[in-house]
């Protein structure tokens, strides 16, 4: 797969708008070219680093827009990130471990983390989508991340 196709997909999952996703990839690449983003080869593959730079550019755009995308967005609803989708992930060692650790989390906890990472949803958006109180969502995500770190150590 072309990297550009993968990276545009990362931005689209967050912004769900081709113009905005183009802006995100543009911003990310300009940042890289101007050395504003640094790559540390000791910390994983260059591919993951590229994805992270573009992803943060997309998150910045989503934040600037006030993350006004409704959480009942049809395109999001049709393709929810569910646990079974984790099975489609590559079979690298790191991926397998992360998948196992995610599988060990309570379902809504896991969903919250995936909705935030893959679709760029904010705490209030996740709360609305999972029909949980905001405070609960914040606590669960925090706890989920802590569990992930322990599990991955």
């Amino acid at each position, binding site marked *: 797969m*072309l990297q*550009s196709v993968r990276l545009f997909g990362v931005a689209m999952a967050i912004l769900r708008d081709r113009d905005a996703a183009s802006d995100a990839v543009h911003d990310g690449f*300009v940042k890289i070219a101007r050395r504003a983003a640094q790559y540390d080869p000791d910390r994983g593959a260059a591919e993951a680093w590229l994805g992270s730079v573009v992803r943060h550019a997309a998150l910045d755009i989503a934040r600037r827009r006030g993350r006004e995308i409704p959480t009942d967005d049809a395109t999001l609803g049709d393709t929810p990130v569910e646990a079974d989708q984790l099975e489609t992930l590559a079979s690298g060692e790191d991926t397998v471990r992360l998948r196992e650790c995610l599988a060990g989390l309570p379902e809504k906890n896991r969903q919250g983390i995936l909705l935030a990472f893959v679709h760029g949803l904010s705490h209030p958006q996740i709360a609305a989508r999972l029909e949980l109180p905001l405070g609960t969502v914040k606590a669960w995500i925090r706890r989920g991340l802590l569990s992930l770190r322990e599990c991955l150590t």
Partner: protein
Amino acid sequence: MTRDAIAAEYVLGTLEAHEATELRALMANDAELAALVADWEQRLAPLQDLATPEAPPPALWTRIEATLDGAAPEQARWRFPWPAFGLGASALAASLAALLVLRPPPAASLMTVLLTSTDQPAFLVEAQRGEIRLSALNPRGVEAGRVMQLWALAQGATAPTSLGIVPASGRFSVTPQTIRPEPGMLIEITLEPPGGSPTGRPTGPILFIGRLTTAGSS
């Protein structure tokens, strides 16, 4: 929240705009915090693949190039010695990859990376429709009173053809009239006197060298 928890939520994307901005500012002067963030990036990176791949609009690459070309103040940074950024060869290769990946699948696009004698990537060379484009990955000065000259040697040819003097910016384009870029063509940069080689052939040492290959999708 602990620092690690904040780093985790930054990577997850759940920090508010002002929190994310603050964290980035802190990271610039706080290596430990930056390391916490980097650890989380590494932990969660596999989740990037959950996004459905989608081809970007073809005009995107042109737009990025236009931004980079038009940004005169930033170009000065390209001349900065890379060691000042604490980057190694892999970082250069990664940046190179970044600059390449957005190209729409071209009909016949050629590329190579010119390496130093110790295999450090130094220049990216791209060729398309007869045009050869050079861009420095690791801009460096040359000793006073010398210039860098770019050459192409077709397979089977006995003498290289000069493509011109490499400007200080490390970026330029040329469409040679007498030769046409082709796979297997050797591209090299030699150290020459001001104005270029007086003989029409390389006279100084080869600083960087690479061979054009077809640039394809990965």
